[in-house]
């Protein structure tokens, strides 16, 4: 039974793209066929983590939304780019990084229904076990759609006053949209913080399960989105945390 999993955050800079890329890779490494779609049309970035550059992007999600191509044509098998043999597959559906194309979508908008069709066609046509949706921060039409069609939703926040505020709103919305599984991930936690306290506080505040409290890791910062952390640092506590999250999302 295929799953659609959305990774969301109220604010930017929470580590959503990196988390999505790592969770996808971890799942693919267990033998699954995983699709990753970058719906953050305003500031696309996850393609960088999978080593897919502009010159190799014939079609992007933008082209599909303008009716220029089928959704399948926007999917790139990036499994080889991981640099490590894995038993499953990762397909990336990127958003365009060309300024003109970003601006065009923002100006003209697009049919959100098309995006929804796209999700389901991808699962079917690529025979996916999982479709992971990397969303734009904040609540808007597209993110509401992703949340509504997801079997599982991971909301990422930092232990930061701004993130705390916005996450409350998102959790409410997720509850109202009846998402079957909702998990919170507290990310980039300064090592000086008491992790157990952070977990307890967040669970209490939102009345929602915290799947992981992930530490700020210098190695992650230094990797600087140039690759997949879980592959480079398979034994790092952060990677172990991500594996646990991946397992929880698939339950």
């Amino acid at each position, binding site marked *: 039974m295929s799953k659609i999993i959305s990774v969301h955050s*109220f*604010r*930017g*800079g*929470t580590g959503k*793209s990196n988390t999505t890329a790592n969770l996808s890779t971890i799942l693919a490494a267990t033998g699954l066929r995983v699709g990753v779609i970058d719906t953050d049309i*305003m*500031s696309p*970035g*996850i393609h*960088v*983590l999978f080593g897919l550059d502009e010159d190799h992007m014939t079609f992007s999600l933008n082209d599909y939304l303008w009716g220029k191509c089928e959704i399948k044509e926007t999917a790139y098998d990036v499994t080889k780019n991981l640099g490590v043999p894995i038993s499953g597959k990762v397909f990336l559906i990127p958003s365009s*990084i*060309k*300024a003109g194309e*970003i*601006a065009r979508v*923002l*100006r003209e*908008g697009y049919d959100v229904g098309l995006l929804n069709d796209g999700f389901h066609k991808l699962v079917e046509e690529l025979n996916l076990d999982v479709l992971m949706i990397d969303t734009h*921060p*904040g609540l808007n039409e597209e993110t509401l759609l992703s949340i509504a069609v997801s079997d599982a939703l991971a909301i990422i926040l*930092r*232990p*930061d*006053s*701004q993130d705390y*505020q*916005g996450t409350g709103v998102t959790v409410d919305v997720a509850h109202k949209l009846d998402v079957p599984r909702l998990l919170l991930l507290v990310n*980039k936690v*300064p*090592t*000086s*913080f008491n992790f157990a306290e952070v977990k307890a506080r967040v669970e209490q505040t939102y009345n929602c399960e915290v799947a992981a409290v992930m530490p*700020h890791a*210098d190695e992650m*910062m*230094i990797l*600087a*989105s*140039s690759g997949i952390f879980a592959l480079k640092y398979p034994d790092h506590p952060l990677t172990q945390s991500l594996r646990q999250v991946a397992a929880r999302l698939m339950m």
Partner: protein
Amino acid sequence: MPKIISIHSFRPGTGKSNIAANIATILAATGQRIGIIDTDLHSPAIPLLFGIDERIIEHSLNDFLWGKCSIEDTAYDVSHGIDAALSGRVFLIPFVTRPGNISYDVSLLSDSFQLLVSALSLDVLLIDSQPGLEEANLPSLAFADVQVLVLRPDEQDYQGTGVTIDVVQQLGVPAMMLVVNQVPASLTLTEVQRQVEKVYGYAVIAVVPHSSELAALANTGLFVVHYPEHPITRILAETAVILTT
């Protein structure tokens, strides 16, 4: 000479609002009158950093543009939140910008910036822009005297910054400067400066190291007030001087 400085980044999470708020504070501490236009509505960063309860905010710049209030009504003096003995002033001006929603007269916006400067006797007007390439951002980018782009030394930011510079160049902004923020301790600050300047061809006016104290402060307050002797505070003070000369 009053200046309009736009602070922008392609991706969210670069620390743009934090830098804007801290630089405003530094300048106000030298006796200057600073306005910050806060457009980044999804991130209530600026009000939180200045300890402002958003509920007291009744008017925004939008209300002025629609003729619903005076220009003075849109400005909230947040100086007391910084320090009761502050020699200068910081005014917060909320401005709601939504993607695809420029229903006001854009030339009026340029006038409103000038009006703010004269009505509040501002030395500097900072615009904390919404991240990303949105049409709603373009007026702020076009009417600024100086454009500051904030990025982290991260591949996603590097790519996006390149795209942003392409667009901003077409708008003909007089001066563009870069700030590299959240730099890991393993990288040499001067080397980062050199490399980023080489890649983009614009001056890097500050390279700010990643700081666990800043991270732990978690946007609950102004770093330069909490850590007045910290190297980062010194860097931001130098940056404030560069921006205003």
